């Protein structure tokens, strides 16, 4: 999944306005960031890189750690446990979303699981675009009344749908 991860960050922002979107978006993409960093300078993404970034035994503890760190460092600013749980859930959502679109590692020696919707490139892209629009609608409702009317707000769905279409055209979907 690609743009769908950003959409889920938008959805989380609509429910928990205190959490910065500048934090939620990289958290939603965190396993991809880890895989990208691990593959830095190499010619291929190895199974090891994929396991360390996208397996359940990586995602679950990292999600808990991120939620805990967020709570520890931001509780002075009024952050609640529910906010921290949301940050944790956004991290976990990456694995769940990728389960639908691809196949993901589970644990050491465990099976690779997933629905591999990526084999249907355009239906998959259409599904992500629909998810973007739904989450953006929820996010837009959370904005102040005056901000909802600003045309700039359309930049978000337009750019995410555009990025998703380019991703589908390149046939190199994000894992």
């Amino acid at each position, binding site marked *: 999944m690609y743009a769908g991860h*950003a959409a889920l960050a938008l959805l989380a922002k609509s429910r928990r306005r205190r959490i910065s979107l500048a934090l939620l978006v990289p958290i939603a993409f965190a396993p991809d960031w880890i895989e990208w960093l691990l593959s830095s300078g*190499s*010619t291929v993404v190895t199974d090891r890189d994929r396991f360390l970034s996208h397996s359940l035994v990586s995602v679950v503890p990292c999600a808990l750690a991120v939620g805990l760190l967020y709570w520890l460092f931001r509780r002075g600013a009024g952050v609640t446990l529910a906010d921290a749980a949301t940050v944790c859930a956004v991290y976990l959502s990456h694995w769940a979303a990728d389960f639908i679109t691809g196949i993901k590692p589970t644990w050491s020696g465990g099976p690779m699981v997933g629905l591999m919707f990526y084999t249907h490139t355009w239906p998959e892209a259409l599904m992500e675009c629909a998810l973007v629009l739904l989450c953006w609608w929820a996010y837009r409702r959370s*904005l102040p009344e*005056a*901000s909802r009317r600003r045309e700039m707000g359309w930049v978000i769905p337009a750019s995410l749908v555009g990025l998703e279409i380019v991703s589908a055209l390149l046939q*190199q979907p994000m894992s």
Partner: protein
Amino acid sequence: MMAIAPMGSPDRLRWIVLGLALVAPWFILAYTDRLLRRTR
């Protein structure tokens, strides 16, 4: 041992494009949200 892609190679270029694909939604959403919530 992990093979290192030389500068300017297709593998290195692909790695850079993937990085940009991660940065783009981050920048767009964070910046637009900031502007939308700024009171005029």
